[in-house]
């Protein structure tokens, strides 16, 4: 197992280098950051050239990338569009987004699995049909529509929740954004859970558990659920990374100053340091979440062994 983890960590290095380089090149292709710096006014060519030289922007792309990577390993991710070090922005943004992602994740686990079990155990009945229809609706409506509608209803019309999240992002203000962020994944979790429950409830080992005279509760929790949740947990694990990256839309709706907000600002300002810095951390989170899922998989299913 230890060996496997080390191998996986080593494999991350080329993936990491590759993704960061692609991001780096893409942001460059977006346009001239110095021009963006001056806004609508046309920059004075001499001044622009000087800034370019200062920032090393006149070097070939690959050299710039090399310099950037050097910076990363000494903990310097460059300066953001607003003059703050990118590391400072990361320190503000990531905890906020993580908090939001965890709230969303909790909804996903509790409501998603709950609904999935409910409908999987009552296939073809009213509860099942209801859940299937609801989840289909949630999946087919774009997140920002759900977001604005819920914001209007709960935040503005009924005043049951904060319409926007105040600075510092206190926990209860994140409940509404959390449900919006979770909505689509939650629907997928519910459907996936339903499918695996329905499949496994016909499995021979479930029949054995019934034949052993176990109470229905125990058959469901110890035998049916324990097996059915393996693919669901795998999905949830990969989704944790996706939630952090996908918070962009939700953060804009509820004015949350998290990863999505700064990433958006970085793109608007064509600021390589900010964009690459934020995306790099996202990539790392994603890779680690994936590794965690694979390890968890081996814990949940004894038939899987890593060497």
């Amino acid at each position, binding site marked *: 197992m230890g060996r496997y983890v080390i191998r996986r960590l080593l494999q991350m290095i080329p993936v990491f280098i590759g993704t960061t380089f692609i991001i780096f090149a893409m942001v460059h292709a977006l346009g001239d950051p110095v021009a963006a710096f001056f806004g609508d006014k046309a920059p004075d060519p001499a001044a622009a050239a000087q800034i370019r030289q200062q920032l090393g922007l006149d070097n070939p792309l690959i050299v710039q990338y090399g310099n950037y990577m050097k910076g990363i390993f000494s903990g310097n991710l460059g300066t953001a569009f607003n003059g703050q070090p990118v590391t400072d922005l990361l320190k503000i943004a990531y905890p906020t987004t993580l908090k939001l992602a965890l709230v969303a994740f909790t909804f996903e686990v509790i409501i998603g699995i709950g609904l999935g079990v409910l409908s999987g155990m009552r296939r073809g009945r009213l509860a099942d049909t209801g859940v299937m229809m609801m989840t289909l609706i949630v999946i087919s409506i774009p997140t920002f529509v759900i977001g604005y509608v819920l914001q209007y209803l709960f935040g503005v019309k009924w005043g049951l929740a904060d319409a926007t999240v105040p600075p510092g992002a206190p926990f209860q203000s994140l409940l509404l954004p959390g449900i919006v962020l979770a909505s689509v994944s939650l629907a997928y979790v519910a459907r996936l859970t339903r499918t695996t429950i329905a499949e496994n409830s*016909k*499995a*021979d*080992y479930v*029949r*054995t*558990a*019934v*034949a*052993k*005279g*176990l*109470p*229905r509760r*125990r058959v469901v929790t*110890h*035998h049916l659920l*324990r*097996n059915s949740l*393996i693919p669901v947990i795998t999905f949830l694990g990969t989704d944790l990374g996706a939630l952090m990256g996908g918070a962009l839309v939700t953060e804009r709706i509820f004015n949350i100053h998290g990863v999505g907000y700064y990433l958006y600002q970085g793109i608007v300002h064509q600021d390589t340091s900010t964009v690459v810095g934020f995306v790099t951390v996202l990539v790392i989170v994603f890779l680690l979440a994936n590794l965690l899922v694979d390890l968890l998989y081996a814990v*949940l*299913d*004894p*038939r899987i062994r890593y060497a």
Partner: protein
Amino acid sequence: MGIHATEVTAEAGRGRTADSEDAPLLQVKNLQVEFRTRDGVAKAVNGVNYSVRAGETLAILGESGSGKSVSSQAVMGILDSPPGFVTGGEIVFKGQDLLKLSNEKRRKIRGTQMAMIFQDALSSLNPVHTVGTQLGEMFRVHRGTSKSEAKKKAVELMERVGIPAAKERVNQYPHQFSGGMRQRIMIAMALALEPDLIIADEPTTALDVTVQAQVMELLADLQAEYNMGLILITHDLGVVADVADKIAVMYAGRIVETAPVHELYKRPAHPYTRGLLDSIPRLDQKGQELYAIKGLPPNLLRIPSGCAFNPRCPMAQEICRTEVPPLHAVTEADGAPLEGRGSACHFWKETIHG
């Protein structure tokens, strides 16, 4: 229908018989099961009668789809419902009709008083729990045993069914065992609380031939030791001969012939049974083409009228297409009774004596 077989009794019992001499351990009377599916109602079991005494082995024989598994699942109370429903009959176990009991009462009987062994031990054991956990679960749930005590019991059970190094292997998972060892674990699990009745649904079909014999022997030994009733479901006539006391042959959800095991082999009283026997490869007929019953098992959505076997039967007459044959008591040609024999054929006399 209400046709009851002449009570089929065991040949002089192996060991002690249950408390009251003439009450069988299990008596299934006119059992009917149907599956309500999208395509229609499949009548899987249509009035099955049989009985098993303590220490006795009843083999249920029949082609695939004849209702062997479904009838025994109905006895265990583990029918897949919906779509399966018991629509009639009685299942009298130790003097009470199980079909009249509450679900909770039936659950408490399962595992403690009657247990089941399934065909495919790999899929029938839970892949994510150790065999120790799954064996110990019987004691934990039904007896409230502590975790450590349950594990000790699990090791004892594994030793009892001949699994070497049980102490170490108790912590392993089903996929780490060979097929034969896994089936031994299934047997151990069924045996755990020393039930009065074990139903084994094709316990050796998934195993290698050499292992088959060992597992069958183990099962027979344990049955004799604990004086349990055993229902052995199989479509392998060879397996049955050594271990069973009596045989019930099923066709299209009905028992078409019952007989003590050796008599059935010597003198079948039903054309279907004869067909089954003739399709066993025999050494003295080497080289000859193997006999096979022509045609296919009936569609349970549309069972033929009269005798269900009539489209495939070489002896079928007009009456076979219109009248359902009751289970006749089979006698010698001179009318002397043959204990425990019955045949659901209009022409049983011609079949056995002709």
